[in-house]
């Protein structure tokens, strides 16, 4: 992950900054320049609440190289109260318990390390609500 790209992504990764279309109200995460629903160009920024519901999920058993030690891990499409959806890991639980409908909270976590000498990449992961 090149530093300039990573730095640009900080508001969305660190603060869950999303965009709401002033025309149709659709919330996209991350914010886009043009609303995918109505093609409107007036987008206002908002930070998503750190919580959501699992829409669909899986458990990755055969991971990409960077995630070798973490497998098996659960991944899910999570929908926040604002109606934004995004994909992330679901952690701190038995992976096979992550199923559609599960309520989760979003926590700041280390997403990946770029090998031994690259930068550390942070973002949000989901944790089941007790």
């Amino acid at each position: 992950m090149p530093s300039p790209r990573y730095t640009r992504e900080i508001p969305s990764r660190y603060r869950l900054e999303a965009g709401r279309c002033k025309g149709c109200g659709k919330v996209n995460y991350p914010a886009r320049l043009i609303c995918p629903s109505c093609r409107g160009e007036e987008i206002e920024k908002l930070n998503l609440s750190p919580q959501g519901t699992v829409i669909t999920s899986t458990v990755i058993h055969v991971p990409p190289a960077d995630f070798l030690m973490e497998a098996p891990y659960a991944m899910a499409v999570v929908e926040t109260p604002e109606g934004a959806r995004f994909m992330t890991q679901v952690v701190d639980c038995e992976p096979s318990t992550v199923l559609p409908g599960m309520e989760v909270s979003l926590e700041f976590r280390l997403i990946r390390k770029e090998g031994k000498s690259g930068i550390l990449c942070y973002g949000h992961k989901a944790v089941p609500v007790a």
Partner: protein
Amino acid sequence: MAGIVGYGAYIPRKRIKADEIARQWGKNPETIKRGLLLQEKSVPGFDEDTITISVAAGRSAIARAGIDPQKIGALYIGSESHPYAVKPSGTVAAEALGIGPEVHIADFEFACKAGTEAMFVALGLVEAGRVDYAMGIGADTSQGAPDDALEFSASAGGAAFVFGRDGIVAEVVETYSYTSDTADFWRREGEFYPRHGGRFTGEPAYFKHVLAASRAILEKTGLKAEDFAYAVFHMPNGKFPLSAGKQLGFKKEQLETGWIVPTMGNTYSGSSPTGLAAILDVAKPDDLILITSFGSGAGSDSFVLKATKRLPEVQGLAPTVRSMLDGPRQYMTYGEYAKFREKIIVNE
């Protein structure tokens, strides 16, 4: 008059029992647990480090402070396990917490004392009037070498404190720092595990500094042990803080709330700060609290705090330490623990 206006803590949900570590090295679990007074400790996941712990604790501290994070003018994170050797932890945490860009940030290190160090400087800046609010955080994910005593205790966790003048939940009555050059525990640049001087870490290091700082602050304030509702000391294992407390005249009831090491382990820079958070979770207005940290190398920072009327109003605004120690957690085998703590050699 300045003090803590918000506080928070975070302890990872993964755990390993002392029994499991003892079994790995062929040691008698009962002997270990009796000798160190440790049951289990927290283990950070691959996705947890000093920064993520600081952010979690920081979010709770800001929630309890009830302020806009933009008002925080300084952020200091003290740790022995900053994720980068060169690049600050504080900047990542600040961006995640919504602090800055108008903010002063520095990372602190002083073995296990780095947390209270960050708190000391945050407090000082507020008292000086240079900033309205400042946050000091102690957090660590330190390593214990395999088959070493420290492997039973080295754990992960941390606490964050917002200092200010408005909305104080715990006034800072007095501070005292006692420091000398004592090489009881160290790690050279590039080494993976720290080293220590065995029994030299006890009397000439831990006890010398903890007792000196605590006695001095009692004298400075004219207070006696029985005046306090709570006391918490740095907790490298279960025994040392109880012994220090006893030597200073504190009773078990005053020590037990902050004495969370048996199930949390030693979170190094997060140790006494997290103990303090556990105390603040239950303290009542006007309760006096003593916290004395210890960092190898060596030094102790002491604070005398007094809870205010506002404290009960904020206790419930974020997770308590007890809820994290007693709440949902996952126990590891030694193999899983070794994997998470990167003690297994892998093909790069």
